């Protein structure tokens, strides 16, 4: 259960839901990791953005 909670906190942290990482995570060179993560996300957005459709919950 502790592992699941830790993983959940990790995912929320890398997803921008939480400000700080899970307890016990010592990441050296945090700025570099964030830059790499953003680069990866932007890369995925660039690859997939062609199939864009409207958001379901927006009224039109």
């Amino acid at each position, binding site marked *: 259960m502790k592992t699941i909670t830790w993983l959940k906190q990790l995912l929320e942290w890398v997803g*921008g839901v939480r400000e700080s990482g899970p307890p016990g995570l010592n990441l050296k060179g945090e700025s570099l990791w964030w830059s790499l993560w*953003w680069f990866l996300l932007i890369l995925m957005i660039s690859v*997939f953005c062609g199939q864009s459709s409207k958001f379901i*919950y*927006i009224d*039109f």
Partner: protein
Amino acid sequence: MIFNTFEYFFWFLIPSAILFRLLPAPYKPGVCVAFGVAFFVYFSWVDLNGIAAAACILIFLWESIFSRLYRPGSRWCLVGVVQAVLILVLFKYWNFLANLFVGPGNSFTWKNAFLPLGISFFTFEFIHYAMDRRQGKTEQGTFFEYLAFILFFPTMVAGPIKRFQDFLPKLRKPSLDAATDWRVGITRILCGLVKKFAIADFLTSVTVHLNKGDVEAAPKWLLLLWLFAYGLKIYFDFSAYSDIAIGSARLFGLVVPENFDWPYFRRNIAEFWKHWHISLYRWLVDYLFIPMGGSRVVVPLIYRNILLTMLLSGLWHGAGLNFLVWGLWHGILLVIHRFWSKSRWAKTTPNRFGIVWRTLLTYVSVNLGWAFFCMDISTALLFFRKLFSFPL
């Protein structure tokens, strides 16, 4: 579209967030109002037409002026609630109700009907403000502070549904830790865009098959696959939207309510609703369920209140009978859960297998309900007849 457009980020979000942070406190509501008006005019114009843009601005202007009359205990607050409901009914449900009560092709049909951008959400914020002002739960705020609240564009199109008493202190004193806000905000926005583009839009290519022709021809396993894909799609789509909205607000230094908290991993339907579209769930509880008596009445009336709340929630999601059935489905599930949770069988603590079983049961129940959300009633019934091999 909006949140996945270049214009949203580079014409509206980034300039307004920077300006909001740079200007002194008295000018911050002005930034929200100016960019909010520009946002609604631009996107209403692009996606609809000039009339829709004008209608939006007129509604906001009228609401901001009329709400000045709201005082604790005042009847004007009730008038405010009624007019917000009327605005919603007029624009969203007029043709649905005319068709339902008079019949298709009647003379009451509004031929050029249009839906002002975000009407389902901003009318709920109007109702919240009127009711909370009446009960003295929120201060009035200045004219511009209330306008900034209702015109805060990152959340006005599709929530999260905010509360004025939560928003006002943050508007007056936003976070000054720009570095953390922008790191967290940008990460949230990027993750939201990935969820939308890479997952939700991919799943759309699977769920387009949920139509009469394809349902008739598909084997059972494929029907289930499509439905579960739709369940994932709606989660990823709306949580992606919420991520972008919450991340956008964070760039201003403002924290707005969360909308999702791992809803598909919940052990029962009540827990699911507490973690799915959270801001709507809380609104429904505070402004519909509790005013009807909530759970402080006799048991049959509690069940009635649950069913009515979920029926109206269904109708809010869309002007169609299928949405009513979807709401009813969830209402029935919640009633069954409440009945079960009060019984002696529910008192035992579940073991690991029990937890997995309950989570799966909740997941499947919710997903079966999506059939009524994404298909009209006749197609949904055909879907279930085929799935469970009922005689045609």
